């Protein structure tokens, strides 16, 4: 059975509105699937109310929908319980939550291990923690292809390591981290593991139990869900050990002028009115995604990525920022064409309806590693097809004709 991109495409209303658009910026934001759109609309138009406090029917329906979304997320992640799912504003908010709540327990000299491939959202929060608490950041180097250099894990994870915070998959190179040795090395020194799943969740269900992590962060808007919502999954005992981060309504047990007690997870970490409609939309998106034929979908996107790589490889001087084959990687293809600036490339491609991104991709340390200032990145979703890839390749020939 060959997968039909056209069939998948039908579930994304924006794409129907732009029949000539070649949207290849899926790593920045995925298009909203109709399941999410419909769930948000249904919520807003039939049972919008604040959650977890009201006793009237509308509020009960809103509560059920919100808690149902938590269950849908838990199911997608194979979490042991929906109480392990914290709704946040996005990946960045989730990681900052851990950097503060877990960070509170760290002291000068404690170590956090990152990698040079991290997105700024999994870099800057730790630099800020270093400022606040004097922890030491250790940065795992990369192989020449841009993968985490796991051979050197032993040099970088010391007995002082308290947390390993690395990406599940890179938003630039597409490389999927081989987590088995990472988790084992962290466990060996008693460190917790946080995975940045911002790029991974949209390529099929994740099994947090099998990954063996303690925390997993991702965003709704990259997973074909609404913006304004994200998730921090945390193993029950890992969440239970954390103090709250943000203070406000909903996360307390009892507030006194002098003393305040806190609610149990996940509510302890959901201060204030949560992104209700957005969580409901994300739940619906993941519920729909969970049932998709991922083996076929991933074979389809890998084929497209390979077609793109093969087509680009013949361009003179072009450097791939990341692996050149499709083993253990996502359909994200980044490249640099010396002498032509990524933004100029993107602009010319845009004239042909090809939407790709150019720049540092919020990964400046990785750009520095590759010795480039920026790169062009095409990121593929199952609704993309051969025509999208060919439009990009044709556009690149135009770029070279016109800009060199």
């Amino acid at each position, binding site marked *: 059975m060959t997968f039909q991109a056209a069939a998948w495409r039908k579930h994304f209303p924006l794409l129907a509105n732009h029949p000539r658009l070649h949207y290849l910026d899926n790593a920045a934001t995925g298009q909203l699937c109709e399941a999410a759109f419909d769930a948000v609309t249904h919520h807003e138009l039939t049972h919008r109310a604040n959650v*977890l*406090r*009201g*006793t009237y029917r509308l*509020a*009960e329906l809103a*509560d*059920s929908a919100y808690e149902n979304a938590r269950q849908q997320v838990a199911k997608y992640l194979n979490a042991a319980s929906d109480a392990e799912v914290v709704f946040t504003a996005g990946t960045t908010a989730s990681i900052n939550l851990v950097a503060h709540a877990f960070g509170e327990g760290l002291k000068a000299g404690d170590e956090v291990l990152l990698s040079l491939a991290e997105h700024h959202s999994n870099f800057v929060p730790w630099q800020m923690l270093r400022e606040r608490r004097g922890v030491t950041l250790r940065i795992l180097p990369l192989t020449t292809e841009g993968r985490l250099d796991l051979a050197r894990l032993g040099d970088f994870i010391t007995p002082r390591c308290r947390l390993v915070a690395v990406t599940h998959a890179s938003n630039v190179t597409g490389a999927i981290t081989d987590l088995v040795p990472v988790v084992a090395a962290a466990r060996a020194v008693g460190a917790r593991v946080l995975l940045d799943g911002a790029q991974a969740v949209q390529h099929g269900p994740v099994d947090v139990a099998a990954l063996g992590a303690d925390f997993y962060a991702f965003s709704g808007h990259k997973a074909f869900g609404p913006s304004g919502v994200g998730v921090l999954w945390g193993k029950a005992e890992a969440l239970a050990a954390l103090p709250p981060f943000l203070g406000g309504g909903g996360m*307390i*047990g*009892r507030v006194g002028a002098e003393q305040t007690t806190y*609610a149990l997870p996940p*509510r302890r970490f959901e201060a204030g009115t949560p992104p209700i409609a957005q969580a409901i939309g994300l739940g619906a998106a993941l519920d729909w995604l969970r049932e998709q034929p991922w083996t076929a979908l991933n074979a389809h996107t890998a084929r497209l990525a390979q077609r793109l790589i093969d087509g680009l490889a013949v361009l003179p001087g072009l450097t791939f920022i990341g692996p050149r084959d499709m083993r253990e990687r996502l359909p994200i293809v980044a490249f640099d064409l010396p002498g032509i600036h990524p933004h100029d490339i993107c602009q010319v491609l845009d004239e042909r309806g090809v939407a790709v991104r150019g720049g540092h991709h919020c990964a400046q340390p990785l750009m520095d590693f590759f010795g480039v200032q920026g790169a062009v990145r095409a990121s593929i979703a199952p609704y993309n097809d051969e025509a999208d890839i060919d439009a990009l390749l044709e556009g690149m020939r135009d770029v070279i004709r016109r800009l060199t």
Partner: protein
Amino acid sequence: MNDDLYQQALLDLAKAGHGAGTLPSPDGTALRDSPLCGDRVRMQVVLEDGRVKALAHDVKGCLLCRAAASLVGLHGTGLNAEEAAALSEQVAATLAGAAPPPGWSELSLFEPVRPHRNRHGCVLLPFETLHAAIIESHKQV
């Protein structure tokens, strides 16, 4: 429609306040809050051979909570820690649709609460607090 949420028998049960009050020298006392509504139940027990010999409760809560506490007052003596824990689960199951456990037929008064998930906690709170008070007594020993 939850027309019969406040049926007369439930109001009567709440008003009866079986077991309401204080014990002079309890073996264990537990205090539990509902984060949703700020309700609070205090439960005191005297044990004999690990089983509740006497109990008393003080409820700042809604009718459902008071009726549930009254029911605990009516049938709660004789329970040990394990049975009290099991009872809490059976009450939760009843609210989810199961039949009341043997000896607790009055729990059927709470059937109209089923569709109102936000109120389940109100019914459960006295049962959970009873269990907590028994556990507390064991710690005192």
